[in-house]
């Protein structure tokens, strides 16, 4: 009897791994990247295709059903194209050569995308400024002693490029795919190289410190005049899925005793070690 009575009390007292409790359906990496839309439809995102996938509208709601972003709502129906941000090649091997087949419009991003084919692979990548059908682009992973004078659209590790080169689709960690400078008309500039790291100036004027093995594509992103485009009317903004502001927010100034925030420091692309899990005892 005593054993049976003690069982429920013991299960509460015995420390359990918090990850197993907190890791629910919602807050995991798949939902954070917006992949849950495709998982629920039964689409396997690991198989890359050129076929545009159906993309249901969220209306600013997250997977928990609550509003996460108040500026989303309505708009024309869109379809998702699986853009590949990873540019890789074999180490100490020949450079990968691909040909640009066509440059297309993508409703899910501001930049244009390009269909690129080489060997037995077809995929979408982000188009650079002067990319046109018939161009040949290269990718190499090797870092020679003398910096490379690269063409636009080619991808090299940051250590192989000379100082002052304009790049886009910059990786934060080597081999994980480009993360910075992917919007229309943006670019990052290589400022200096310190030992095994490279320091870049991002489009937001912040500095980025990453490994020299991180890949980047040479040149500027396509659709350069995107920031000069005028939407024209509030109803046309709704066609793009932009919902009006609440009207309550105003920009803060140094007037009226408000503090202006300090300039942020550089971003360091170095992975942190996983923290040891904590246990809580409750009564």
């Amino acid at each position: 009897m005593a054993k049976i009575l003690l069982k429920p009390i013991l299960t509460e007292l015995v420390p359990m791994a918090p990850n197993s409790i907190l890791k629910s359906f919602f807050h995991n990496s798949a939902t954070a990247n917006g992949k849950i839309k495709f998982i629920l439809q039964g689409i396997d995102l690991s198989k890359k295709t050129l076929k545009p996938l159906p993309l249901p509208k969220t209306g600013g709601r997250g997977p928990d059903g609550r509003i996460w972003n108040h500026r989303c709502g309505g708009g024309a129906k869109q379809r998702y194209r699986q853009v590949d941000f990873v540019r890789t090649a074999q180490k100490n091997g020949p450079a990968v050569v691909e040909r640009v087949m066509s440059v297309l419009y993508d409703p899910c991003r501001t930049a244009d995308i390009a269909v690129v084919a080489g060997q037995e692979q077809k995929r979408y990548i982000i188009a650079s400024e002067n990319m046109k059908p018939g161009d040949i682009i290269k990718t190499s992973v090797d870092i020679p002693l003398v910096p490379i004078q690269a063409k636009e659209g080619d991808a090299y590790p940051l250590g192989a490029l000379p100082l002052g080169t304009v790049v886009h689709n910059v990786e934060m960690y080597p081999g994980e795919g480009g993360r910075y400078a992917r919007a229309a008309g943006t670019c990052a500039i290589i400022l200096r190289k310190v030992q095994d790291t490279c320091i870049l100036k991002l489009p937001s004027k912040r500095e980025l410190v990453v490994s020299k093995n991180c890949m980047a594509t040479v040149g500027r992103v396509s659709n350069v005049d995107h920031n000069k485009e005028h939407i024209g009317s509030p109803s046309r903004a709704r066609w793009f899925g932009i919902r009006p502001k609440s009207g309550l927010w105003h920009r803060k100034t140094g007037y009226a005793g408000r503090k202006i925030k300090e300039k942020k420091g550089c971003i360091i692309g170095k992975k942190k070690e996983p923290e040891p899990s904590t246990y809580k005892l409750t009564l």
Partner: protein
Amino acid sequence: MRLTLRLCKGTIHWRQKKQWEKKAQFRDVPVTLSKEVTKKIPDIEIHDPTVRPPFPKWQPPVDDIRFQAPPKLEDHRLYKQEEVYKMTSQTRFIEGLKQACILTKSQHFKGLPPGISSLVGKIEFPDQDLLVQRAIMHSKFWNPTKDKLQRRFDTANLRWHFPREYGIPRYKGGRILLNNLLHLCQSVSGQVPSTLMERHLIPNPHLYTHYFYKGKMVVMDSLQDYMTASKTELPPFGDKALIEDSVNYEVPDMFPLLPTIDFEKSHLYEVKNSYGWVNKSSTHCPQTIFKVESSYWPFEPRVSRDAMLCLGYAMVHAKHKYGNDVKILPEPVSIQCIDVNVDSICFIFFQLNTLDLDNLDGVKNFLWYDADTKLYSVTLSKPWLGKEHEKTVYHSYESGPFQKMLATYIYGCPETKHIHL
């Protein structure tokens, strides 16, 4: 306020809770042993007492289809360990005609071959143009089907809301047009009786073959709409001098792409050569393939796909005739294809000279194509411009495509020798 015993106890309870939250937390640092211990006992196994054993796998309480595991690919009856390329009638070549020429090792010519162009317009029947126009009207309007069609949009005015249209879908319209045109072609049998006596029109013939390209198998699996087969083969489109000249021709290159880029990779296939018959029949020579295209593809992917299908049919016939290991054919095998759309007809003529398709040296095969031949032209409605533009207008009928179709239909008949002269 009087300080009672109860009043003091209330605060103590809250403070205890706060204390407990802080003190009862601890971090789970992974267990590490000092070097001295590990040197003494190198093969020590550390057991973490906090890690729980994994739960046993859940077993369904009832035997039901919902809980059953999905069937494995390895259990399929067609499964083979070796991976092959697979081509169906849906594969679209990214490089178009150039890619098809590399895969079939062929030299391509624009226009009709000389044997057929001499037959165009030579044979006619009464009220020919009127009957062809009737066939077009049947495929577009006179069929009673009212299916839901795709919603229209115009790039000139993207926000214009077109009303929903109900009518004959693209594939059905194309099939009706092909049936009617074939019926008109058969009406020539008074002048050319061998089209009726010696030929056999087969509906829905199934092609299943394979060949080796650069040491890897390419399986072709496709279903056509019609095929005509005869007792005798078609006469070759190109003469012997042209075959000898083809040694000097260089097939264009498509670096950095490989020509096998568009094939699907599969483990499910059969190793057989068949073009429809289970047993060998008297009319065993395939002559003309008829195919209805329902997609909005331009002519180049259509021609390149049909060229591959022609290669498949010619290859199967050559293997039946000369054996499986034949490389250079003693006599060429020729196949023709008619690809019908709702408003256009493509003509493809293929002559198989060699089956040595691994390298691009030596004698080449031949490919003639006459594409982009429209039966009529359409001006679509643009209602925002005014009342005059409210209706879609079908105009400028052309008689040329049907004359070409009639010429390809009667090609190879013994009666046509008099027409050539």
